């Protein structure tokens, strides 16, 4: 699993870490039941504060993708459905970003999605 963060980007570090992990889970590069690196190890590797990593892990837990347990660390709990949802969620974020870049309002984007459903 490759995780990259860039401090010069406007996106916060914990979000970058969470996004990277989500992408790895969606792509199946980490499998269900696999233990993620200890937050302390990941923080040292990426040269960030351990709380930054813990916050990313908490985000993933709230999204129902990992389980956090004392002593066991972070364990991936993402079934097939969660993976597929992640893949589509990533496309949705890209759609919104592209829409904004093209100067299309969010309401219009939603209308476009509804149109596409027909």
């Amino acid at each position, binding site marked *: *699993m*490759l*995780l*990259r*963060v*860039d*401090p*010069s980007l406007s996106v916060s570090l914990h979000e970058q870490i969470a996004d990277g992990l989500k992408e790895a889970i969606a792509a199946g*590069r980490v499998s269900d039941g*696999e*233990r993620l*690196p200890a937050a302390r*190890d*990941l923080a*040292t*590797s*990426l*040269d*960030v504060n351990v709380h930054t990593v813990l916050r990313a892990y908490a985000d993933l837990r709230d999204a129902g993708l990992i389980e956090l347990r004392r002593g066991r660390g972070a364990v991936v709990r993402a079934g097939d459905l969660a993976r597929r949802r992640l893949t589509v969620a990533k496309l949705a974020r890209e759609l919104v970003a592209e829409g904004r870049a093209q100067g299309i309002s969010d309401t219009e984007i939603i209308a476009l999605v509804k149109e596409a459903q027909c």
Partner: protein
Amino acid sequence: MLKRRIVLAAPGLALLAVLVPTLLLADRLPDPLASHWSFSGEADSSMGLTPLTAFVAVAVSAAWALLVRQAVARGSELRLTVAPWVWGAVTFAAGLQLTTLAANVDVADWRAAELPAWALVATFAATALAAVAAHLLEREHPVSLVTASVQRPTVGLRSGERAVWSARVQGRWALAGAAVIGVGLIAAALASGNWWLAAIGALAALAAATVSEIVATVDQRGLTIAYGPLGWPRQHVPLEDIAEAEQIDIDPWRVGGWGVRKVPRRPGATAVVIRAGEGIQVRRRDGRDLLVTVPDAGTAAGLLNDLSAR
């Protein structure tokens, strides 16, 4: 194709070469047979003909199955790297059985059986010759179809960007093997009251458990390998020592087996082999190579290269 057929059929012929003389000589053998000799040349242990033959037949068949399995997995193009080992093991097992037959034939009681030294020498010589022959028969096949791997892979790390790659690699059989060895030896120790055996059993189980699983990490500090379920001991190659990393295909039969080992015929090269297949080869600045079986090896090698180029 003929050569491949010979490679695959030979263990079967070896089995026949053992079973036919065993059946023919069965009437002229004592029961039980002398099966072990002390250094002074006296028979000191015996075994029935049926268990001995069954043991040898199972050993030869298991080695044969290993060979057939690799042939099925690798197809007709690739080299059967296991062939020299299988031919050697099969010849050795067959040689031991034939030596035992020669020692026991026309002897009334197993205690009187004398070990013919020439037969032992011949067994060792035949084992070596068989291994070489299997190698020569398979030599024309390439070890891997991946000829030119990507030169110096990269993940395109931008300046200022930080990255970490990590992967857990689990061997399918090592932990089970560790449990079997450990429990077996400890049970044997309890039965026989020999505590050295229990200590050896515990150590063997521990050693096998240590290489049953690794977590490999690549980051700004370099490459770190944490062994075993406890993540200890740890092996570290600092980034500044790394000259280059590449993705390779690791065949345990070519690097000397599973576990942590010196690679035969490659001075300074060490291999960490948890399973067969994809892995990274890390070249240190002092020329020593470290080979590690990891998934997604192209990414791991690419990140190491990008980080060490900074």
